[in-house]
Each structure stands twice: as C-alpha cells, then as structure tokens.
C-alpha cells in the first residue's frame, strides 16, 4: 500500500500524554497474544450492524422525528394556557363601616360573592367559595353556620370546617379602609390560616361605640 497514513499531530500528542505527565506510572500490562473470542470478527460485524453508521443515522433520524412531533404536540399544551384573561375585577368598595350591623352581612354575596362580617373588634370578609369544590355556601343565622349545597360542608362563624368534606377553612379577603371612608375589599389576596387571618390586611379593627 502506498497511501500515507496521516496522523493529526494533536492526536499523537494526546496518545503520549499519560506517559509525559506521569512518567512514574507502571507500564501497561502486555496484551494477551490471542484476543478473546468475544472480540472476534463476527462480534465487530454485529456491533456495526447494531450501532454502526447506518443504524446511528436511522435511529437518530427517528429520534429527531419523535422529538419534533412530541415537542410540537407538547407546545400545543402550552397554547391552551391563555396569557391574557378577560375576567371581572377582584376588588370592590363595600360602603362605609358604620352602615354595617354586628354579624354576617350578605349584602355583597350576590354581586361579589363575599360575606362581610362585623364583630365587636372590627371587620373581616369571607370569600363565599367552599374550599372543597368551589360552590357558594349559604349562611344560616340560626345555627351560626355556613353550609355548602354541593357536598354538605359546614363552616362556623370563624370559617373553620366543622362538618362535611371541606379540607380547609373559608378564605378571608384583604379588607381595608379607602381614603373616601369606604371599606375596600380585595379578593385576590386571601388568607385562611388561624393566626395570620385575624391580623394585618385581613382584619380591619373598628371598635363599636
């Protein structure tokens, strides 16, 4: 054969690297004279058939096809999540605090789905949405309970679950006094953990005269 074998200079240096960087390393063990049966010619042929160039191209081709198809279909899942929502606003003004009597007010239930509760210390506001599966409960003054018509959850005056399947207390909305002297309620800010829900923006202190 007259063809000259070109070896890239870098590849040759890399081959020599171990020897140059670690001259103290022991010489590699001499190879056995006859290669073991596994590395026979048939083995290499089989390897070529299974993982060779043709197979590589075929498999990577199909892999990219499925990747593309799957990615495209998945991207359509994202398409189903809108970026702009056209939904009613979540905050509203609920009139002057002095207009409320002590107890649970249903004044804004039909319009804003909230109960405004006034007690001796001040105001808080329930979001009238059952924490079980989202129906609107009804207020029963005689029993002091909110009862849900869909699966029968009962909540007490504080919004805690006392019967039925609901897992969590009723949500309370942020309630504050606006500059014009009206209560302003924000249903986007919600809290139902005992302790946190009775303070800060979720409770508006208003002593009865």
């Amino acid at each position, binding site marked *: 054969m007259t063809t000259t074998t070109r070896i890239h200079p870098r590849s040759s240096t890399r081959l020599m690297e171990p020897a140059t960087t670690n001259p103290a390393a022991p010489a590699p063990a001499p190879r056995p004279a006859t290669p073991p049966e596994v590395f026979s010619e048939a083995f290499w042929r089989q390897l070529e058939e299974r993982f060779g160039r043709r197979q590589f191209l075929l498999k990577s081709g199909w892999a990219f096809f499925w990747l593309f198809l799957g990615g495209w279909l998945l991207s359509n*899942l994202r398409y*189903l*999540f*809108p970026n702009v*929502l*056209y*939904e*009613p606003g979540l905050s509203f003004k609920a009139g002057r605090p002095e207009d409320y009597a002590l107890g649970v007010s249903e004044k804004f*239930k*039909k*319009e*804003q*789905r909230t109960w405004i509760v006034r007690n001796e210390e001040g105001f808080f506001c329930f979001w*009238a949405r059952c*924490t*079980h*599966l*989202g*129906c*609107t*409960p*009804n207020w*029963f003054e*005689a*029993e002091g309970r909110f*009862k*849900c*018509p*869909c*699966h*029968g959850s*009962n909540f*007490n005056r*504080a919004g*805690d*679950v*006392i*019967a*039925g*399947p609901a*897992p*969590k207390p009723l949500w309370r909305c942020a309630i504050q006094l606006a500059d014009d002297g009206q209560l302003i309620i924000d249903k986007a800010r919600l809290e139902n953990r*005992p302790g946190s829900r009775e303070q800060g923006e979720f409770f508006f202190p208003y002593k009865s005269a």
Partner: protein
Amino acid sequence: MAEPQLPKPPLMTLVKKTKLWKSIFRHDFTDTPKTRIQRIFGNVFLHLHPVRVSKEAIRVSYTWGLGGLSFYLFLVLTVTGILLMFYYRPTSLLAYQDMKDLTFAVTLGGFLRNMHRWAAHLMVVVVILHMVRVFLTGAYKPPREYNWVVGVILLVMTLFLSYTGYLLPWDQLALWAVTVGAQMAANSPLLGNEGPFKLPFITTANDARFGLIGGTVINDATLIRFYVLHCVAVPFIFTFFLMVHFWRVRKDGFSKQTGEKVDVWPHLVSREFLAALLVTLILFVWSLVLQAPLEAQANLNVTPNPSKAPWYFLGLQELLVYFDPWIAGVVLPTIIVIGLMAMPYVDTNPKGVGYWAKMGWRKVGPVPIWYPVERPFAVNVFMLGTLMWFVLIFIGTYCRGPNWEWYWPGELWSHRRLTKMTLKNIPNLWGALLMGAYFALGTPLPQAIKARLSRLAGPKAPRLASLLMHAGLGMTMALAIFIPILTAPDAEYPVRSNSPTLFEALGRSTNAPVVSAMYRLVQEAGAGGYAMIGVMILATGALLGWLGVQLAKLKDRLFEQKGLIKYSLIIGLFLMMMGVIGKILLRLLFGVKYVFSLPAFNFNI
C-alpha cells in the same frame, strides 16, 4: 282488431336499466344467496359486517343489541347536535338566551333539544349496559382483551362528552356541575393548585384547572372551550376509537362462533334496523312528553340548594362527600378506569365465553342465594362494583336534600332544618393501624407456608394459623375504630369544638347514629353501657374476622393460580373497592371525617 299488447314494463324496471342507476347500484336486489352477500360487500355502510354469522350470536337475548344501539345513539346525538348548533352561540351573554329561543321560539327547537338530551342519557345507560353484557358473557376474554380496553376508553369519553355538553346551556346546573368538575382538576396531585404535593411553581393561573377552563373563573373562555370539546374535539377522537372498536370486533370475531351460520342480510341487518326503530320511537315519545330541564341562568355567585349533578355523575358527587377531593375526584376514578382496563388481563379464567354467566341457587345457612356458578369471584366483584355505583347514584338522587344533608326518600325537605352535624378525624396512628390491618387482610397463606406449618405442628396448623391471622386482624380493626372514638381527646377543643373528647362531640351530633347511640348508652347505663359497647367491639371484630376467614380459601386459591403480581393487583383493587364501602359506613354511622390526615400535604383519606 287490436294487436295483442305486451305488458308494459313498470317504470322501476326501466329505471333500473338506465346507466345512471347501474352506476350507483352494482347489483340487483332479488333475494338470492349471491345478492345477500353483495348487499353486505357492496355497501360501504354495511361492509363492516361479516356476510355470515352464527345464529346464536345474533339472538336478541344474547346481546340485546346494546353495542349497535350505543352507536346508533351516537349518530342520533350527532345529527340532533348539528341541528342545535345552527341556533346556539357559545358566549355567556347569548348562550342561555339561545337555549330559551330553542325551547320556546324555534319551530321544533325544543323537540330537538329534548331529543339530544334524552338520547345522551340513554346513551350513557346503554353503554353501561353494553359493558355489563360483555362482562357477563365473557366477551372480553382472549383474543378480545384489547377491545375491552378500547371500550372502557369509549365509556370514559361518553361520560366526558356528557360533562362537556352540560355547560353549554349556561344554566345553574351547568355552571355548578362544571365548577365542581373543574375544581377536581385543581385538586389533582402535583399539577393542581389545591392538590397534594403540588409543584412549587403551580398557582391558580397555571394549574390543571386553569388549562381546562381557560381562566381562573368559569367564563366565556370556558364556554368556548367546552363547546369545541363537545362538538368537535371529543367526537373526533371518539370516532377514531369507535373505528378501532368496530374493526377489532370484526378481526377478533364474535364471542359466539359455534353453531349454525346464517346470512347477515337479512337476519342481522333487520334486527339492527328494528332495534334502531324501536329506540327512535322511544326517544320520540320521551322527547314529546318530557321537557329537558333548563334551570335559571348561570350565576357565578349563587349555588342552587341542593345542587345536584345529572344522575350519571351523582355517584361521583356522592363519593366526593366521603373523601378528600383528589382521592374521590382523581384517584378513585383513575383506579376504577385502570381496574376496568386491567380486568381481561388479570382474569385469566378461560371459562364463560359466549354465554351469559351461569347462575344457580346456593344455600348460605338457611338463605337461598342466586349465585354465579362458573366464575363466581369475577362476576360477584364486577356486579358488586356496578351495584355500588348505582347505590351511590341512588343516595345522591333520593337521600340528599338541602345543604346535602341526609333525607330519607319521601321525607319532606326543609331549608331551615336544625341539625347538629359534626365530623371528626381519627388520630393518625389509629387510622394507620386500621388501614394497615385492613390491607393486611389481603395476605394469602401460600401453599409452601401451609405445608411447612403442617410439617412443624400437625395437619390442623395451617387452618389455625389462618383463623388466628384473620381473627387478629379483624379484632385490630374493630379496636382501631372504637378505641380512638371512645377515648381520644378532641384536638379542636376548645376552639372549634365544645366537647373535650371525640366521644362527646360525635355522641351529641346528629350525623353519627352509632356513636350517638353509644353515647346515650353510656349516659344512661354508665358502666353497663361500657360493657355493652365492649361486647359490640368484640362482635364487630369477630364479624370482620369471620369475613376474612370466608375469603381465606378464595385468596389462597387465587394466589396459587395467578402468581404474586396479578394476585396483588386483584386483591388490591378488591380491597380498595370494599374499603370505599367501609369508609362510607365509617362516615355515615360513626361521623368519621378522615382516618388518616396530613393537612400540610392535602393528603386526607
């Protein structure tokens, strides 16, 4: 003299000789063996049929034509649906008004709407009955396992079509049924904003519910979404599965192959035609007599009291009362569907194909019971599951009144009835013990262990061991129910509860009859009451143990037959099904809310 006149050929004969006629109809219609075959082969709509079929397979009382009728009802729904679409505009401002127009102002509009609604109800019934028929005639067994799976998918899609359909009228029923359904998506694990183990980036504005309804509240976006799903997307996918279903019926063959064969034309085709005619007639009368309900216009702020889903979802609605929403709304339906799909793969009993399950009378004590003779476990479990579903529907329909409180059928409803309802959790350790003992009831006693036991301790040892195991587990369960109820302090006292102990809290409530009876017993008889309760605990334990012993033989046989994996699947699904009954009883009789509860993870059972 008049010439003798040849009889004039009738007009039809002339028409049949034209090129036009011949280009459309390739063969003549005289009844010969050849044309009987040609009618099937030469007709695109009929050629899915075989040309000849076993006479027994088309006996009406074998199939009741349920599969074909399901498809026919799907066609009726498609046609009536298309007609309704001409007048319906899917926006929240117009949809309800269009429904009113359809009902009162459009000629035949109300009739078409009735027909669409009643055909949908009928389709759900027929599809369920078809499934029961296929099960009881063993038609899901090899080589038809996969087609059963496709059938289950079609059942789920039938229900999903109903679900997406009933938002469209934009009335109160629609809105609140969809609110509840969508909220179940919000409770799905990982991807739901209120579900267990939710991922950290999930909020109300990107969870599964948001994707389903296209916003954070049910609105125009939801309406158009459900409209497209109902009218286009789901029927489109449904049709694909339907094609696969039919194709597989043909390729896998009917479950009944033996006996004399007859021509499909006219024997099967005429039956199909008559069945369709009969159903059409029923639908016509039904739609003329009964108006499809239309409640008040949807109001996002006011829920009707009580708010009930259509009957086929009332079972699910009732189930939601007893479990955390993600369990009743996501996990249990998934398990039911997977269990149904797995059925042909775990039921490897080759018997019972091609005829209705053989029943016989068997005496249990003095009581004669109608009992499946040939594959008792499979038939009993499947029918029990189906029955349970309808019992739940019955409870939801007839036993639930305002505020979803229990009213007996016929009892007068009162929106202001005073009740003292309360529910309490069993402490987690007791609950874990209860569930552990319950699922341990599924343990079989393998042959190898039995043999070893009898070698070690005599021939009676295996039976004794089985008895001890089941009695022990039964007693553990009884204790794990009663001890916490009798002794545990009420964790909510004094904030949310007026009673320091669970016993007092539940005993004074009106929704835990067993505990209130026990409480009264103790109030009136003191120590004697406790003694009687003790006897009751022992009796409950013994009963549960006895039930376990009754199942022991079956369990051991199943284990030997099926191997560990199939056995675990079967017994796991079976115990879960029975566990649902157990939990329902615990809730209805003992006022137990959850037996195991980790509120931080929304994990409540």
